[in-house]
């Protein structure tokens, strides 16, 4: 257990450093944007006859951090806010704290991403095992090739294809809002059904685009494990097929769990294309909107959140590994 605790402590320390670094990067990026909106507004207020103090205050209301003062002062106050989970106030939605906007959007991202990823993981892993076992056969080949191709197709192209097919050519699935407004929100069949119906295409896209990766990873992992001596040894000891299969599966899937955790972290930010194409109001769309509408506090907030998700996923992945792999648990490194 101490190994876990020690690792956790190390990860947390590193994670915090990482967040600070990213926050710093995004702070300076925002501060270097051409036509700095903060300064522009400040200047405008000044031109409009406002005293510097008042202008400063008025801008502060809008942007959540002070536009004047030395870069250092601004930076420190921004970082100070960060520690209080205060990411400033959205520009395009005045009055709305960035954190609230982000949590609103995040809930629309998390669920489809989670479902899509888990679905593709499940299917990909099963087919991956199959493709590995039948790797010399036609079907195994077909599975592997389908995997490579799906893995190779960019997400946005997949999404577009799905829209064209299921929303335009045969319009059977919605690809606009996340839920039909006519249903009363809550735990009623209509609302949930509508939510589900609207999530089908995005989830399908996540699932399809990730599926290729899983099947390939699982296939190669299984092939590696199949080559391991202990599998042959188990067979030679006359172990039941089901048990041998479990040995293979468990050992092969182990490295994939790490990737799973990591990809869940990455998908928060990777949802950009899908959300754009399906108009799904999650973090990705929020980020694009923030970028195209130049809502800097929102932009850097979203970026921070997405990075934080990756960091958390990293930690989870590692701890997970520590828990399930006895070699790591006992402090030995496995490469």
């Amino acid at each position: 257990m101490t190994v876990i605790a020690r690792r956790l402590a190390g990860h947390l320390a590193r994670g915090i450093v990482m967040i600070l670094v990213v926050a710093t990067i995004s702070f300076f990026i925002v501060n270097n944007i051409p036509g700095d909106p903060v300064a522009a507004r400040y200047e405008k207020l000044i031109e409009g006859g406002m005293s510097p103090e008042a202008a400063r205050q008025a801008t502060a209301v809008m942007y959540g951090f002070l536009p004047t003062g030395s870069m250092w002062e601004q930076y420190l106050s921004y970082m100070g806010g960060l520690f209080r989970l205060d990411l400033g106030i959205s520009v395009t939605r005045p009055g709305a704290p960035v954190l609230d906007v982000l949590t609103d959007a995040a809930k629309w991202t998390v669920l489809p991403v989670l479902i899509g990823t888990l679905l593709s993981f499940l299917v990909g892993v099963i087919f991956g095992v199959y493709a590995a076992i039948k790797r010399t056969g036609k079907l195994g080949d077909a599975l592997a090739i389908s995997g490579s191709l799906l893995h190779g197709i960019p997400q946005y192209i997949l999404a577009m294809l799905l829209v064209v097919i299921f929303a335009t050519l045969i319009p059977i699935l919605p690809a606009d809002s996340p839920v039909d407004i006519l249903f009363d929100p809550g735990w009623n069949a209509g609302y949930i059904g509508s939510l589900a119906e609207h999530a089908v295409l995005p989830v399908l896209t996540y699932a399809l685009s990730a599926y290729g990766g899983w099947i390939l990873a699982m296939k190669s992992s299984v092939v590696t494990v199949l080559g391991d001596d202990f599998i042959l040894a188990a067979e030679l000891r006359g172990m039941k097929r089901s048990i041998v299969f479990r040995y293979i599966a468990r050992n092969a899937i182990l490295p994939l769990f790490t990737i799973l955790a990591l990809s869940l972290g990455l998908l928060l930010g990777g949802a950009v294309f899908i959300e754009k194409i399906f108009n799904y109001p999650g973090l990705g769309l929020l980020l694009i909107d923030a970028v195209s509408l130049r809502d800097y506090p929102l932009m850097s907030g979203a970026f921070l959140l997405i990075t934080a998700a990756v960091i958390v996923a990293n930690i989870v992945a590692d701890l997970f590994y520590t828990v399930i792999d006895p070699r790591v648990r006992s402090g030995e490194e496995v490469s």
Partner: protein
Amino acid sequence: MTERSEGTVKHSAFGAESDEGGLRTKQAPGVRIDGLTVVYKTTAGELPAVRDVSLELKPGTITGIVGESGSGKSTMALSLLNAVQPPGRIAAGRVDIDGLGDVAEFKGEQLRKARGRHIGYVFQAAQNSLNPLKTVGKQLLDLGRSHGVEDLRALVREAKELLGRMGLDGARVLDSHQHELSGGMRQRVGIMLALVLNAHLVVLDEPTTALDMITQANILKIVREVHAERGLTTLVITHDIGVVAEVADRLAVMYGGRLVEQGPTREVLADPQHPYTRGLIRAIPRLVGDINEAQALPGRPPTLATVPKEGCVFRERCALRMDVCDTVDPAARPYGLRIVACHAVDQAVKVPSGEGEHA
């Protein structure tokens, strides 16, 4: 994690009655390998790794197979369990095991049940023959379940006793993962798993490769003792003649997929007939005596692709090469208690027929 030296072990453990009906009553089986040919599919077509090999393992004996790398030892050992891995397959021949039948014909469940319960196999790379994610104990239980052992407790007890017999702390080992065990310990766990279901035919593929001298000596001793105590038929495969000389009653020499000579160990060592056997023995570095007596064999061992398709497989490196060797594959013929496959030996036997039956 220390290994206890033997002596404190209750030998009675092996005599204890087990609840599994009939397990104890089994006898050491005899094995007859007949005309075994195993081929591997390669880019150059199917090539034999073991060709027309016949070998008898007498009940209760230890047979050793020696041969250089790639001579087909492991392939042959696997054939005993009908477990040659694709792209290989048994192309011809029988493997008759007493009380089981021709294993080469076995399929599916029948084959699976034979493995483990009737034939124990100790892996060439015993170091890696355990599932890294599970404790030895859990794997033992999996093994028990696979073979329908009802009283798993008894099985664990049996395993502990076996491990204790080999000088290990059974409870501790069963609780360990593979990475927590040293090479020698892993090898002993491998032997335990091969024997715990009371198999009486045991195949050990290079049981001591990668172990150092002292551990090797220790394992060999265990093999010998366990063999005797449990009444086994044992096949030991190795490239090290010394190992065979230590443990085996009978010795078979493999070269290029063929068995070139077999017979009682002492006899073969003392008076090798096949030029390859002779060369092999002569190539052993000796602790004492004139170092110039020992000589390397010229040439190099063949690989699957370079094994001659016809004629004697050894002729390229043979000092006694004759014309007939290029075209005719020498048949394995009895030579006293031995069987030798060599044209030169044939001739030698034919000419001075009266003598040389016993060396």
